[in-house]
């Protein structure tokens, strides 16, 4: 009959140490998986937010007057008036507008009236309302673009319209 020879005292200690090391490694690995997953989600959010913000800028670029601009801005759900007008629309976790408040896309509009027309300073940004788990750097802002558009009072390419 075969006999099992085992130095149990040393072996037990070594195995407990191995389990502890394995647990530590496992926790680090799971943390890495978590970071990878949420970094991917954040990258996807950045792409989606980028498409939404760029589309809004393209729409603003195509507008011919400040009246058209404010008509477009009124399609945003929430408005806060002040020295800088703020318009916000909300999206759920699947980026569907109006069915949740997981993400917010905000337009900040600052008018500068001059004798020749109106210069509009525009800042569009997308934020996530709840922070990303596992990721500390970067904060909750996902994407932001700043630009200006000038609507001339007279003349310009849209005068004849």
């Amino acid at each position, binding site marked *: 009959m075969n006999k099992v020879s085992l130095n149990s005292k040393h072996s037990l200690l070594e*195995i407990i140490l191995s*389990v502890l090391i394995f647990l530590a490694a*496992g926790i680090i690995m*799971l943390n890495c998986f978590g970071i990878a997953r949420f970094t991917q989600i954040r990258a996807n959010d950045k*792409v*989606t937010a980028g*498409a939404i913000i*760029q589309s809004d800028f393209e729409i603003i670029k*195509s507008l011919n007057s400040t009246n058209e601009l404010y008509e477009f801005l009124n399609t945003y759900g929430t408005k806060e008036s002040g020295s800088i007008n703020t318009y916000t629309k909300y999206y759920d976790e699947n980026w569907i507008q109006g069915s949740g408040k997981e993400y917010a896309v905000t337009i900040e509009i600052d008018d500068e009236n001059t004798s020749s027309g109106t210069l509009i300073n525009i800042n569009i940004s997308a934020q996530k309302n709840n922070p990303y788990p596992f990721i500390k750097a970067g904060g909750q802002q996902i994407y932001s673009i700043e630009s200006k558009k000038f609507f001339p009072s007279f003349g310009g390419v849209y005068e004849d319209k």
Partner: protein
Amino acid sequence: MDRQNQFSFQFIFIMLLYLVIVILSVIVISLGKNIYDKINEDRNKNYELQVSLSYIANKIRQSDINDAVEIKDLNGIDAVVINEVYDEEEYQTWIYFYDGAIYEMFTDAGSTFELSDGTRVVEADLFKIEKIKDNLYKFTAVSKEENSELYLSLYSKAVT
């Protein structure tokens, strides 16, 4: 007898610890696999949705001069046509949706071609072009039941 019992208890305990290691390994590997699969799936979906729209946007923006960009009907589907001149010869780049993908066809201006002649650029379930107003177009790409939209404002006022 006691010594034998103690030995067998320690042996079982050691085996249990090994079992814990094995179970934890399986959990970690399975979690890793699931996360990797999910990341890959998201990446592919994102790629198909965004690459198609970015491709169209870049193609149009780089050619956005007067009369260069047109939206034309091609066998019942809307197609983006980009007119270019090389060495005083006129060429056209046609971008259209056909057979589950976005195709590009570079050809002499005015020549005819089959939809299948083009180069398959990126897979998509659907690709749609809508005219919102004179200089504003909406492009929609659908891939794996998810859709993505992009508005493009043309300086050149596309001819339709």
